[in-house]
């Protein structure tokens, strides 16, 4: 799909010296390729998205640093929904079943992916996990990515939306430090706002400014899991997205997250002149 997008390409910058370089003995040919390096992952992600769309399930990819409150947010969300939406969760961590156990304790099916030392989920891991979940009848599938503000942004999982959390103790300049991650978000949640009176260094305005500067154009909600207007706004966003996904699926439309982190340019074949 992205074989001839003709993206803009700069001058050769680095050449990796490899140990045993062999002189070319036979005939040498140059093959022009131009494909996204993560083409195979993207293919599996598209397949996952088809699964979700066939079942009219909204798939959300939750990303943040470790400890920003992804699992706590899910626990509070499941409790607040009180069964209004049917939810399942895929949990990604390097080790332990702890997070899946916490979700199951809320009465919701959960599959734990333990990645070993891998720093991110990829589309194949999610594909295998989803086979262990009953998708039929679900409204929302939350995919809680490995806590990490770097690597998960590069891998499409088949989600419809990226939700990125920024917790107050992390500091309001996190988006400036990790621009790729925050730019990939469709919704930014500023979590643990009940700590704002104690962490006076954190300015919600500065956080919003930093998000804008990395090209984030989505909605920002400030919330605490203990309830309040922000938490209600998050639930309202969720319910709006579920309705929108049902309508899209019914009309056969497909949705991708606002930015394909691995390179929007690679997926707009035809919109640019090939070079």
């Amino acid at each position, binding site marked *: 799909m992205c074989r001839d997008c003709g993206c803009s390409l700069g001058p050769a*910058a680095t050449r990796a010296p490899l140990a045993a370089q062999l002189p070319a003995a036979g005939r040498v040919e140059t093959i022009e390729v131009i494909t996204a390096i993560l083409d195979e992952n993207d293919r599996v992600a598209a397949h996952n998205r088809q699964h979700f769309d066939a079942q009219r399930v909204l798939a959300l990819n939750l990303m943040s640093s470790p400890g920003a409150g992804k699992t706590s947010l899910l626990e509070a969300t499941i409790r607040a929904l009180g069964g209004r939406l049917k939810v399942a969760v895929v949990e990604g961590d390097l080790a332990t079943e702890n997070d899946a156990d916490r979700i199951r304790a809320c009465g919701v099916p959960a599959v734990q992916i333990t990645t070993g030392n891998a720093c991110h989920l990829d589309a194949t891991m999610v594909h295998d996990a989803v086979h262990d979940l009953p998708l039929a009848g679900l409204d929302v599938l939350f995919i809680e990515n490995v806590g990490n503000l770097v690597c998960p942004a590069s891998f499409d999982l088949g989600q419809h939306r990226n939700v990125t959390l920024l917790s107050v103790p992390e500091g309001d300049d996190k988006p400036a430090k990790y621009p790729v991650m925050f730019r990939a978000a469709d919704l930014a949640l500023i979590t643990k706002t009940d700590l704002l009176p104690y962490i006076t260094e954190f300015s919600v305005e500065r956080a919003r400014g930093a998000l*804008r500067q990395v090209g984030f154009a989505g909605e920002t909600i400030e919330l605490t899991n203990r309830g309040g207007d922000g938490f209600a706004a998050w639930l309202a966003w969720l319910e709006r997205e579920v309705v929108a996904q049902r309508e899209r699926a019914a009309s056969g439309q497909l949705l991708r997250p606002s930015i394909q982190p691995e390179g929007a340019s690679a997926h707009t074949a035809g919109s640019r002149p090939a070079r």
Partner: protein
Amino acid sequence: MHELSVCQALIGQVERVARENDARRVVSIVIAVGPLSGVEAGLLEHAYPIAAAGTVAEHATLTIELVPVQVRCRSCGAETSAAPNRLVCGACGDWQVDVTAGEEMLLKRVEIETEPAAVH
């Protein structure tokens, strides 16, 4: 450090190209990487030999073309360069810009050796 995963995906693609073109081995690989792709060129270079070991691309050179970030302003129309964490127009300072380059993570070109060396 997801660069090893990226390199393994790269090698998978290069192996496919080599297979489709009856290559005996891969001589060189050219990829393009922008800072907004989320991968680091230096780490890719370190991860590449590990991913390439034992494959048809084991002895290939990897050339990484770094693609700088470019934005086009929706207000004034200027196309300027920008820092990854400051995607604003370099001409008028507006933050409503479209990224036109810098997100690339592409395999561009593969040089392969096809025929066996002539025997003298």
